[in-house]
């Protein structure tokens, strides 16, 4: 199984590194000051160090208002402040029994909504595909249920060919945890209904938003059969207008070994590039048209040719993008 992994981790590793570098750069500067900062942080007693020296004489009043500048600054409460130990100008009232009784907290906690369970379903692609034997159907969707930090993800992808025969279909159930501002780590299972006999995989990956707002998802899979592969998907949204969106997308699949029954071979298996132009009638509903090109490589390409299929292919698509 060792040989499987060599294909899987570079893709994931590169992604994580990419962002880690960015994160480090972001924090490097804060770090040198941390010792000092911790002294200045909450609840510390450092009146002398932190207290500004009142400088009424040097007070420069820089305001846009001419009227304001004419005002009498001496009457504005800018008299030097008294030390913390001094008596306050307005005496602090001595708490009464009633004050103490009023300050007792009620049982139970404040009902906050800051860890509520929310959900999201995005049918990113539901499209008719122009294929050799008619019109096929493809879909790709993702959904989650959970909180800001922990989510249960469901992903599904599949295609049916022109005669209504399902060529491939899979569904994944993943537990996801936010591990960095822009990244969720996901792990779970994948079930492939097709191609071939159904099979199951363990899955681990990351999903998130890379710098420059590329949406990325990279997942490594290891099947119960021993077959392994990794998938990297990237999307970008080019705004022609605030409703007309051009979305390039690329999906790269790398296999850890041969699985002749399903027509895949070790190494770079296939690259799919799509370009879809959608119009957001509402934020939630957008029809689109697009073009998708796919190319197989290496052993996978050979296997396709042996089966009398083309190793590359391009097709027109039209469909809907919906979320709720």
């Amino acid at each position, binding site marked *: 199984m060792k040989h499987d992994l060599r294909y899987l981790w570079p893709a994931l590793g590169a992604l994580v590194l990419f962002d880690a570098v*960015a*994160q480090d*750069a*972001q*924090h490097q*500067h*804060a770090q040198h*000051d*941390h010792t*000092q*900062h*911790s002294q*200045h942080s*909450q*609840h*510390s*007693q450092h009146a002398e160090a932190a*207290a*500004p*020296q*009142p*400088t009424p004489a040097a*007070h420069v009043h*820089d*305001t*846009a*208002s001419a009227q*304001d500048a004419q005002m009498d600054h001496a009457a504005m*409460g800018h*008299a030097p402040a*008294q030390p*913390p130990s001094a008596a*306050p100008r307005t005496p*602090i009232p001595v*708490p009464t029994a*009633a004050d103490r*009784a*009023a*300050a007792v*907290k*009620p*049982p139970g906690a*404040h*009902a*906050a*909504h*800051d*860890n509520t369970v*929310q959900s999201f379903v995005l049918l990113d692609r539901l499209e008719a595909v122009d294929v050799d034997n008619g019109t096929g159907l493809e879909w790709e969707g993702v959904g989650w249920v959970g909180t*800001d*930090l922990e989510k249960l993800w469901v992903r599904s992808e599949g295609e049916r060919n022109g005669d209504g025969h399902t060529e491939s279909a899979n569904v994944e159930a993943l537990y996801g945890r*936010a591990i960095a*501002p*822009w*990244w969720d780590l996901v792990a779970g299972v994948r079930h492939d209904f097709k191609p071939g006999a159904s099979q199951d995989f363990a899955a681990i990956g990351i999903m998130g*938003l890379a710098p420059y*707002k590329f949406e990325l998802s990279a997942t490594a899979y290891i099947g119960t059969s021993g077959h392994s592969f990794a998938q990297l998907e990237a999307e970008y949204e080019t*705004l*022609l207008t*605030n409703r007309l969106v051009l979305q390039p997308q690329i999906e790269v699949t790398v296999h850890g070994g041969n699985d002749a029954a399903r027509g895949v071979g070790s190494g770079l298996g296939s690259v799919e590039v799509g370009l879809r132009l959608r119009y957001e009638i509402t934020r939630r509903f957008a029809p689109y048209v697009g073009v998708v090109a796919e190319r197989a490589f290496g052993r996978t390409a050979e296997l396709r040719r042996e089966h009398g299929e083309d190793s590359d292919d391009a097709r027109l698509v039209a469909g809907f993008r919906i979320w709720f």
Partner: protein
Amino acid sequence: MSFDANHRGGFAPSRRRFVQGLMLGGAVSSLGLWPRTSWALKSPGQPQVLAGTEFDLVIGETPMNFTGRTRTAITVNGSLPAPLLRWREGTTVNLRVTNALPPGSIHGHETSIHWHGILLPANMDGVPGLSFAGIHPGETYHYRFTVQQGGTYWYHSHSAMQEQAGLYGPLVIDPIEPEPFAYQRDYVILLSDWTDLSPAALFSRLKKMSMYDNYHLRTVGDFVRDARAQGLAATVEDRKLWGQMRMSPTDLSDVNANTYTYLMNGTTSLGNWTGLFRSGEKVRLRFINGSAMTHFDVRIPGLKMTVVAADGLYVHPVTVDEFRIAAAETFDVLVEPSGQDAFTIFAQDMGRTGHVSGTLAVAQGLRAPVPAVDPRPILSMADMGHGGMAHAAQDAKGMEGGCGAAHAAMAATPVADPHAGHGAAGAAGMQAHPDSERGNPLVDMQTMSPTPKLDDPGIGLRDNGRNVLSYAMLHSLFEDPDGREPGREIELHLTGHMERFAWGFDGQKFSDVEPIRLNYGERMRIVLVNDTMMTHPIHLHGLWSDVEDAQGNFLVRKHTVDMPPGSRRSYRVRADALGSWAYHCHLLYHMEAGMMREVRVEE
């Protein structure tokens, strides 16, 4: 001083609903040709006024129609906004608040009223779970306390998200001492934001897609235009910086007029709330921002406004053309309309996506032209507290990603702000951040060189040809009422993640942290640093926030302190009220998402 007779006009829900039912498009309101009709004499939007010391308030559901669709609002005594309550300083008020919400209300079963900015015993503050147990169906809670202050305040629900659904109303307290200014007319102008969505659905939508309402993201066309105007290299550099941060400089607010219909005293622009005057009279306008999520920029073309009170308390009069009012803030202004029969009170949202207008006129039915909303501002790196050092960032190798680029650039840059004293980030211009923010999935950015920005009128208000109020122009009419130097300092960072729509202090949400503890009687300082790109009005219950100027001198006493992006502001707090007090961002969904703390004052 008395309220204009119109103020006591009756509430006519059916007629109001009819009028607002016509509100199918914003365009109609801009025509300025609204005919005189009989309904106008009835003045929809003139609040019910309840005065005295005994009040019976019933919270229930009432159908309302502001958009052409009828929705269920939460109301007090059937009114939106809730009735104007008039108290007198020094009296003891009794407010019996009854929960008459129907079973299965979409707005929850429990309710509450919080008296915003009012000094009172902790169990009268109206925050369920902190001050009391909330008001459950059929129950009546008896609020009873002695009024210790005068001025303009407001009240609202602190349960679920009922504040969004209509549970807010004005509070006017007549002071014991004569007021230091005179006027002949007195009107409350309560601004708010209405949505047909249920607040819970809106919150969920923000969690799914926080930029839903931003239809002004920069496009390919914008890129070409910018490249022509500023050069290709500068434009690419600008896109690079924002791209690295994975943010948009057009994100000015999370929810805007794409979702909201803005209201003035519970009326849309079409309803045209009107306050009457006679030429030469002085009119006091008590502006209250009762919005859930909206900062308004307010002006009355043709009139100067003299601000005489902020958050209920007197300030040295300062005359301006325009002011920004954050959610929960109040400003009292005096105007002297003359020379025209009508003036438009114009309030546009900070993101310039919509507005609400009303009229000051010598007779009902008159209107003045309504201005167009201003051009949309674009956030700069300087707005974010990143110094705007785009070019230096090019040299910062290996500083890719996050805010690192701008961060590196700032290291070598002296702080340009002349006020860089106490409030600024220190000699190096670098802002340190709490450890809890480090690598935190709920923190999507950190400001690097924040400044107090007290003399900055704000994003979209600079150099607009008008004299715009800034915090530096607000000076309490009284000395620092405590007078002591703070004995200690607590620094809190406002943090968030735009995509996850998660908000907090120091990267932590309300439910995940312990209370902030203050010792009874102490004088301490809170320093706030805004590590987000949003503007947050921060409200401390029960205790005043004595805002300091850039040199650390007492500036103005407030109950809500607005924090623009890239700002670092400080205020003194005198812990003179025992109990558990809510401390939170007054943008409702930020609070609900976690930007809240409990402040516990203990002996």
